[in-house]
């Protein structure tokens, strides 16, 4: 049972992360390949502050603000780039963040990571805390989902889609495309930061190794499998991919092959991504079927 709760919490965290990416990728058409950086920024900011005695609620708010501000800065420098170059620039940004976390040892302890990240007292740390955390994550997921639904069904969400479909037309219609995309990136970054915050205080130990290109591919998979351009898609996508990953773990594999398991998992994810793109590019939940 505890194990199931644990997987549910992970699925919810990744669902939030996937929905935040989808606002940029699915709605605004921004292929952000460095979104993991904001997950990391949220996680590290909240962890460092709370380890240094800042009350957790305050640390969380600060983490969201930092993620948003850095999102705005990244937008400022990358939105002038067209398609492919935007993707590359964001990828490089995520690498830079990782290098920073690895090398600023005085602050981040480098590759050793940050252990003992505190949790709110009322959640506690024993087995019973799992239920509380499940509740918190569930509420967080619901709030993020409803918030994004509000944006998606409003003129704002429609305007993002106009920008995605045809930037020239958007401009001809009087839309300030850079401003719209900046807003999408800021909101996306804040929500990714929120997912990172939940992760940090749930796992209670973070290190730069948690925030690599692998995680970027993982969250892309959640969005693509779930269906980009809807909020329900990435929400379900997060659950589907996390549960799928756990399921793969239970396939009985003879112990002499066990060293192949990790790379095999990566290959299965990569293969799944390709199959989805070829066979069902719209994902499980299709945008046009409304």
């Amino acid at each position: 049972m505890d194990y199931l709760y644990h997987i549910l919490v992970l699925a919810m965290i990744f669902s939030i992360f996937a929905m935040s990416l989808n606002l940029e990728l699915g709605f605004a058409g921004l292929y952000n390949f460095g979104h993991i950086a904001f997950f990391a920024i949220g996680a590290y900011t909240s962890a460092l502050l709370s380890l240094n005695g800042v009350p957790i609620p305050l640390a969380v708010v600060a983490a969201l603000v930092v993620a948003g501000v850095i999102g705005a800065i990244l937008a400022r420098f990358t939105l002038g780039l067209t398609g492919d170059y935007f993707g590359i620039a964001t990828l490089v940004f995520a690498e830079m963040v990782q290098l920073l976390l690895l090398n600023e040892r005085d602050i981040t302890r480098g590759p050793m990571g940050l252990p003992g990240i505190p949790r709110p007292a009322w959640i506690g740390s024993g087995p019973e805390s799992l239920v509380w955390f499940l509740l918190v994550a569930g509420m967080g997921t619901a709030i993020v989902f409803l918030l994004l639904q509000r944006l998606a069904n409003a003129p704002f969400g429609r305007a993002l889609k106009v920008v995605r479909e045809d930037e020239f037309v958007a401009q001809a219609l009087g839309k300030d495309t850079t401003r719209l995309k900046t807003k999408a990136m800021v909101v996306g970054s804040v929500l990714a930061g929120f997912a990172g915050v939940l992760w940090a205080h749930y796992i209670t130990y973070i290190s730069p190794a948690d925030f690599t290109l692998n995680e970027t591919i993982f969250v892309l998979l959640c969005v693509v499998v779930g269906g980009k351009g809807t909020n329900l898609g990435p929400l379900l996508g997060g659950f589907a991919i996390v549960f799928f990953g756990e399921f793969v773990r239970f396939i009985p594999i003879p112990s002499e092959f066990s060293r192949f398991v990790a790379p095999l998992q990566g290959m299965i994810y990569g293969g799944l991504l390709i199959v989805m793109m070829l066979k069902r590019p719209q994902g499980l939940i299709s945008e046009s079927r409304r």
Partner: protein
Amino acid sequence: MLELKNVRKSFGGLIAVNDVSFDLGDVGISGLIGPNGSGKTTLFHLISGFYKLDSGTISLKGEPISGLPPHAISQLGLSRTFQQTRVLPFLSTLDNLISAAPNQLGENLLPLFFMAKKVRQEEALNREKAMEILEQLKLSDLATLPAGDLSYGQQKLLELGRVLMADPALIILDEPTAGINPSLIRSLVTTLKQLRDKGIKIFLVEHNMPLVAELCEKIYVMDSGALIFSGSPEEVQGNKRVIEAYLGRDNNAA
């Protein structure tokens, strides 16, 4: 309304628009004609801000607009269509129109939460207006279809509908009738005349000469980037330089 002074644009060695000056004045419908490659589309891109001028100035309603980004020019009351039709293929026909409403409060984040009621009212009004335009263009039955599924002619009409949503002061249309069937052309002509009667100024590029003669009070003629003549349809038809531009160059007697 729209005034151009010594407008120039070159691509590498090619001068696409060469020192063009004119003032549309108060004319209801003005036309721009010229052989293929004479610089008409380039001029429209310059007016709407999609290309930057090399030199010269453009002003709309007396305000300089050259140098402004396209969205700012659009917000000042200039709407355009594209020569290559550009609808938003995955959005519904209705959403294509609603998204063309200018300055929507609900496209900003904070009002979505703090002025939700006002956003909803505005959205309802825009929806109503979009439905009326669909009715007028006889596209109502297709409202929920993705715009990418419409026929070429219907997409052209939808583009015109988008322009109507904006309540512009001036509309520029790049070959609005190219590739659409005669009955759609008639409904387009009717719509354009209604717009003119409402006081909206129209400036259009068109190769269909009888149509230009029927619609336009004044016609501007371009050749190799330069404005070579302007006048009433009768004057243009009898002008030697205009005839030369069409016949002398590439036998494109459209």
